[in-house]
């Protein structure tokens, strides 16, 4: 099993920005001390939903502040970056950290990102996929790359530095829609997934992934898929739930305020999957934040240590996934976050 810690950099009303980052860095240090395997950084723009506006930059800082633990991005919004710049940054962090950097990419879900950085959201899925292909081509060819497509033209150049690692680092991708999952599976790229989906939905994703991966000569059992989850430990399940439910609802509300609206999703052909999920939620009468969050927390590792063991054990048994990112920040209280992390490290990790 591999255990990660998410640094959300969410700014609740009672923390100022310095407190958010100070807490994040202390959490990173604590994660290393408690033998977690990795730390994951989230990137957001123009919202207090996450103050980290450059996950690569912050990863560099955290890698420099730690010795052993790996640091990943979950995720960098690939389409708003130049692919050569991404290849440079990943290789640079790979060199500087001695292979401790875990790059993760997504296409993005917040319309302002695309508006401000001048990217057509109708094409962001194609850009994410092509940008990753460009990075791979660069690393495959000792840094040499030239590229011409409908989306981008790159003259013949040599990118420095090259990777320090002998093998290409695992590049993690957010795979929600079947089209993205199929694309990732053809390349054997591990998926970044969330617990809020039901176990069966996660299984369905991995079933589809395996179908495609196998026919492309990738052994699905060897793929390091990652599932992230809100985690909180208390003496009872009820107490754990009640300590975080309102905060998670607020966090979810903040995200929804800046995410694509239902109307925008309906008009974006490349977000049909997300639109159909929303439609389904409406049909089920479960589109309200409070319902979504409560349903998600019901199946999350939130409760006693034993509850967490059962949830993660079941997830591993049913999906085969053995790598998890834990979001411990649900209480928005520094001491409780550290306490929960420590209990998780002492009471859960050794028993799985």
């Amino acid at each position, binding site marked *: 099993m591999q255990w990660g810690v998410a640094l959300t950099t969410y700014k609740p009303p009672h923390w100022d920005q310095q407190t958010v980052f100070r807490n994040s860095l202390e959490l990173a240090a604590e994660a290393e001390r408690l033998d977690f395997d990795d730390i994951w950084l989230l990137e957001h723009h123009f919202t207090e939903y996450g103050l980290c506006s450059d996950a690569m930059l912050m990863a560099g800082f955290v890698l420099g502040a730690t010795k052993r633990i790996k640091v990943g991005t979950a995720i960098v919004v690939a389409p708003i970056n130049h692919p050569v710049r991404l290849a440079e940054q990943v290789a640079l962090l790979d060199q500087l950290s001695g292979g401790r950097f875990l790059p993760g990419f997504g296409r993005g879900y917040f319309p302002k990102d695309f508006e401000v950085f001048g990217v057509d959201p109708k094409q962001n899925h194609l850009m994410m996929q092509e940008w990753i292909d460009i990075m791979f081509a660069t690393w495959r060819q000792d840094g040499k790359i030239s590229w011409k497509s409908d989306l981008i033209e790159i003259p013949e150049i040599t990118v420095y530095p090259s990777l320090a690692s002998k093998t290409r680092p695992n590049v993690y991708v957010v795979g929600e829609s079947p089209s993205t999952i199929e694309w990732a599976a053809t390349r054997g790229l591990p998926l970044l997934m969330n617990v809020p989906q039901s176990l069966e939905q996660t299984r*369905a994703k991995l079933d*589809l992934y395996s179908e495609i991966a196998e*026919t492309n000569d990738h052994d699905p059992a060897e793929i390091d898929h990652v599932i992230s989850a809100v985690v909180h430990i208390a003496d009872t399940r009820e107490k754990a739930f009640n300590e975080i439910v309102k905060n998670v609802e607020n966090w979810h509300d903040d995200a929804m305020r800046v995410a694509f609206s239902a109307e925008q999703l309906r008009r974006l052909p490349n977000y049909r999957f997300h639109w159909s999920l929303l439609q389904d939620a409406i049909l089920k009468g479960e589109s309200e934040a409070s319902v979504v969050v409560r349903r998600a927390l019901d199946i999350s590792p939130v409760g006693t240590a034993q509850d967490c063991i059962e949830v993660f054990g079941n997830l591993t048994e049913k999906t085969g996934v053995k790598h998890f990112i834990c979001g411990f920040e649900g209480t928005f209280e520094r001491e409780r976050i550290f306490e929960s992390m420590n209990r998780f490290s002492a009471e859960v990790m050794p028993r799985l």
Partner: protein
Amino acid sequence: MNDKVVHSGAGSETRTAKPAGRRLRLPFVIAGKNIAAVPGEEQLVEAPGGVVAMPGIGLLDDILPLSENLLADVSTQDIISFLHRVGKMWESDEYIRRRIYIKQMCEFTGYSEQMATAEADLIAATLRGGARLWDTLQAELGDRAILDQWVRREDCEVRALPKGLVVHVLAGNVPIAAVLSVLRSLLTRNQTIVKVASGDPVTATQLALSFLDLDAQHPVSRSLHTLYWPNNSRAGASIVEHADGVCVWGGADAVAWAHRHARPGVDVVTFGPKRSFSVIRADAGDDIKTAARLVAHDISMYDQQACFSTQHVFVLGDCTAFAAALADALEHSRKIIPPPLRNIDQAAAVRLTRSHHEFFGAAIACAEDGAWQVIVASPEHVHRHPGARTALLHPIENFDDVYAAVDKSVQTVAAHPWSMLQPHRDRLAKLGVSRLVEAGLSGTFRLGASHDGFYPLARLVRFVSIEAPSSVHSKGMTMALDMSKIVEHRQFRDLFV
């Protein structure tokens, strides 16, 4: 048509079975749970496209909830709404389960992508058809509310209750049949055990998994169980012995097996084996090209494996012209509905049939790769039908010549023009035909249609009646129904006036 015309086939290649390089692992779905096979304890099933591994049947004693009916108090409205939501998921190209379904159907059941996609669309349409489901209840049970409440029927109030536990033994020839069987069973609130077919283990399994995708805890999800057991196995027999109803699709062997193991009094509902044919008028004034297109569709859908698939075509008028038009239509049809993977036995049967009729001097047109063949044959030279889009054409002088081919094994008679059927429908019905349809609609069961001579929903429920008390006069009666007094006073003449 020349004695033998070979079409080189500009469409897709007809494929013969080549085992898939990998093994497909399919779970059982039991009571809302996805039960994966334990390595070393799997059952290996030979599907048309390769080996499918499923859990061992030994698990069943521990996990099958045979006694509790979770749907007993769920309203029809809730069941139809649930099915509708599942259908909404299936209609989206971006639904993960749909993608998996299409891929597995192509790889392991030998379907072409077009056919598998059409099946996925059909699953979506079938599940989403809420209004049609309500109307089907009305048509087959006499009242759309009869599962939810007591309904007035003459001197009684009647309610339909589920049989209880219904076992469905599926055949692999028509994927949508699996969906229909499950849907009918759940709509009538039965606990539903499905034995998936080795020819198509995918459809029922992925359907059940899609229920779990929506809501694994919903009573509909928890009332559907998909399993597999080898033919004639003791485990399968013991499941049927527990059943309150059995639906069997397919061959005589499966039907006989179900009858052998069902408890006395348990209704064994059988679908098939049946055969179907078309009657075409191809006179100078008739639209031969349209008739050929419609017949080609009835032949091509499900590659002539369905009970409703046209195998023989009786032709009044210019049979040669119709044969040529049908050959063209079948060649066109292969582009729309590419043939599935065929095994060596099927390919051999096709060649054997052609050689057999060549020997008797029949006029034959065929695709070079065996995708289809049109044989103008005398009925006495036909000994068996090989399927695989073989149209056996029989020239006839008048419609009465068709009667010799009719008995109770005939399911569907399709005609073009449809008006031909009108003068003959009574006699065809008396001889045993179940359905009379227009050519091109053999596989489209219209609302209100019977299926193999009965209404399936009525076979999946038991009707319970509350009969009116003595104080209620029956229609036409002028006194209370006090049987003791009636006997005493010898008033039988006043009964049931």
